[in-house]
């Protein structure tokens, strides 16, 4: 297979509140930034991830083309998924296409609606959505089931949140959130989840440039080579799967070769999800998890999964890790999962 690497990563200074920017205004500086970083004005392929339901209007990806500067016309595609899957599509294109570079981006503005209620519209419209259950309530069911099976306590979840928030405060792009317990009344959001166990509402965008072979070496001193990437789904209905385990992540991790990574950026939007994902990927205590602060410190929808890959790649770029993993998730209760393994050394 062709050698393909993440050669550049940029993200917005994510915001926990509406800054009055339209999605394209949020995205434009990120695209400009990655063009400056790589010195590239055009790319062999462009692919993005976004979601109409966040904007409440069709074709949210169409105006984004204005930020990209799609002229002369570009070879371009879009997934209605987290942009991590756009990266997957671009990786496939680089495997067989007559191209050497690809631009991938994702953006989301969760502040303009009630995210947990909007995500109810993602559920099975015949059997599940009519019950009115929202995203956080579903996650709470999963957390409860996981805690019962594993013996994990609320304090274990709190420890995940505390570590994530502490790391996030060191990340200039993340929200800077207080120590769990500071400024909240200690109550639940939806039991057993406390407010700090739930990823914050975040507006933001991110972009990655992929390049193949010598082009990657030319664009980046230490490319983060994709040595394995795979994604899997589970069944949708919470009643027909084991919510306490993430089989999709386990399979994707095995296919992508997750064993032996030093750093893992996991797209856990709830504290307990990190524990489920660690188990599915077989990550030991020696693996550094979410040094960026993870989604619990900044969760711009449709970009947060891509950011995990970007943050993992950044650890390779700066030489602090030789093997790192980025994970992305989509759908209720970790239904779909993608694992991307990056290395300072290309395969073979």
């Amino acid at each position, binding site marked *: 297979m062709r050698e393909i690497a993440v050669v550049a990563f940029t993200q917005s200074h994510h915001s926990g509140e509406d800054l009055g920017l339209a999605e394209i205004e949020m995205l434009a500086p990120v695209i400009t930034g990655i063009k400056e970083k790589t010195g590239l004005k055009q790319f062999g392929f462009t692919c993005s991830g976004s979601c109409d339901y966040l904007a409440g209007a069709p074709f949210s990806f169409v105006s984004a083309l204005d930020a990209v500067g799609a002229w002369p016309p570009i070879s371009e595609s879009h997934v209605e998924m987290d942009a991590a899957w756009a990266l997957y599509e671009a990786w496939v294109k680089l495997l067989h296409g007559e191209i050497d570079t690809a631009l991938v981006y994702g953006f989301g503005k969760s502040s303009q609606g009630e995210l947990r209620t909007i995500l109810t519209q993602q559920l099975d419209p015949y059997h599940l959505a009519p019950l009115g259950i929202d995203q956080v309530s579903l996650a709470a069911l999963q957390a409860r089931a996981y805690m019962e099976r594993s013996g994990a306590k609320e304090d274990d979840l709190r420890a995940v949140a505390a570590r994530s928030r502490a790391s996030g405060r060191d990340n200039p792009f993340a929200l800077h959130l207080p120590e769990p317990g500071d400024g909240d009344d200690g109550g639940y959001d939806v039991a057993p989840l406390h407010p700090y166990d739930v990823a914050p509402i975040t507006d933001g965008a991110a972009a990655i440039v992929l390049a193949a072979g010598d082009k990657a070496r030319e664009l980046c001193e230490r490319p983060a080579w994709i040595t394995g990437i795979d994604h899997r789904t589970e069944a949708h209905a919470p009643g027909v799967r084991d919510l306490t385990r993430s089989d999709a992540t386990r*399979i994707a991790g095995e296919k992508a070769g997750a064993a032996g990574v030093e750093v893992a950026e996991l797209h856990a939007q709830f504290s307990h999800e990190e524990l489920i994902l660690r188990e599915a990927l077989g990550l030991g205590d020696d693996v550094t998890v979410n040094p960026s602060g993870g989604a619990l410190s900044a969760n711009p929808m449709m970009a947060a999964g891509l950011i995990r890959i970007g943050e993992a790649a950044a650890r390779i770029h700066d030489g602090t890790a030789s093997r790192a993993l980025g994970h992305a998730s989509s759908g209720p209760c970790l239904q779909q999962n993608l694992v991307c393994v990056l290395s300072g050394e290309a395969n073979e």
Partner: protein
Amino acid sequence: MSNPCAVIGVGQTAYRTKRLDVSMAGLLREAARRALDDAGLTWKDIDAVVVGKAPDLFEGVMMPETFLAEALGAKGKPIMRVHTAGSVGGSTAIVAAGLIQGGVHQRVLTVAWEKQSESNATWALTVNSPFTTSLVVGAGGYFAPHIRAYMRRAGAPDHIGMLVAVKDRENALRNQYAHLKIPGISREMVESTPMLWEPIRYLETCPSSDGACAMVLASEDAAKKAPNPPAWVHGTSMRSEPMMFAGRDSVSPQGGKDAAADVYRQAGISDPRRELDCAEVYVPFSWYEPMWLENLGFCGESEGWKLTEAGATAMDGDIPWNPSGGVLSSNPIGASGMIRFAEAALQVRGQAGDHQVDGARRALGHAYGGGAQFFAMWIVGSDKP
């Protein structure tokens, strides 16, 4: 570097205004199972699923592939969802083909669909963000001025659109899956229908349909075991450009010309009218046939309407366009592009039934979307490239 990719299975649902007999999952499975049957495979044989559809507001379900994953046999497998506006059915097929061409998988199921009866597409297309005001109602409101610009630019007489409306509906009478079947369709009948968006009359526009289309794409090894003849992918291309900027030719967009040039180069075609045997082209409003004839290089500028008028694109013409009846006869929006791609494959496999173009060996599938700014095309042939 690119591995050969073949279409070894095609499945379509009956296209209807309302498919109240099936759920969304049932609709997709109807197409997918027919494609699997055609390929001589079962769900277990599939490595990955690629789903495409137009905006989620058309059904009112956000990212519906999450709840459809199990019905599509994707549990434990990769599934992804493509959305590139009206071109999405074509783009989805191209993304699925990439998985074979890149050597990632051996057999990929791809499905595109729309169940328009769940919602109201014209409304879904008209709503806009609070920051911008929609100046038009629906797709017809957007495209009618472009058609008028074309007529003036090309000096086309008023009746050309009606010829396409009649020709495509006559073709549809020979397609078992087509939505609009109007026995005795005639120019007088088209002319007698109300003017919706000048110069588009009621019978010059596409219907709103429920429906799904599926294909099984396979590597060379997997294609050898297929019971029916394969259609080989000779080239794929996608192009996008912004919807609006000063100087943009939105009547004959550069993106369409570039995508066509790219796909012809890959397939080794220099004269599409002569070297292709038929084409399934995204014509949702009658006038888009002459407009795309020019944009796709089947003739010179301002010559498209003359080809249509001379009958070149009819079933007995030298380059039949839309033998299936096209988008004018069936329009499950998100699937409409994939239907073009699949019908092109059926033609070169010799499996197009009563609307088969005799001896077709190479065919173009075409889709476009947004403000005529997203393009997806492929060329398939009966010979392995």
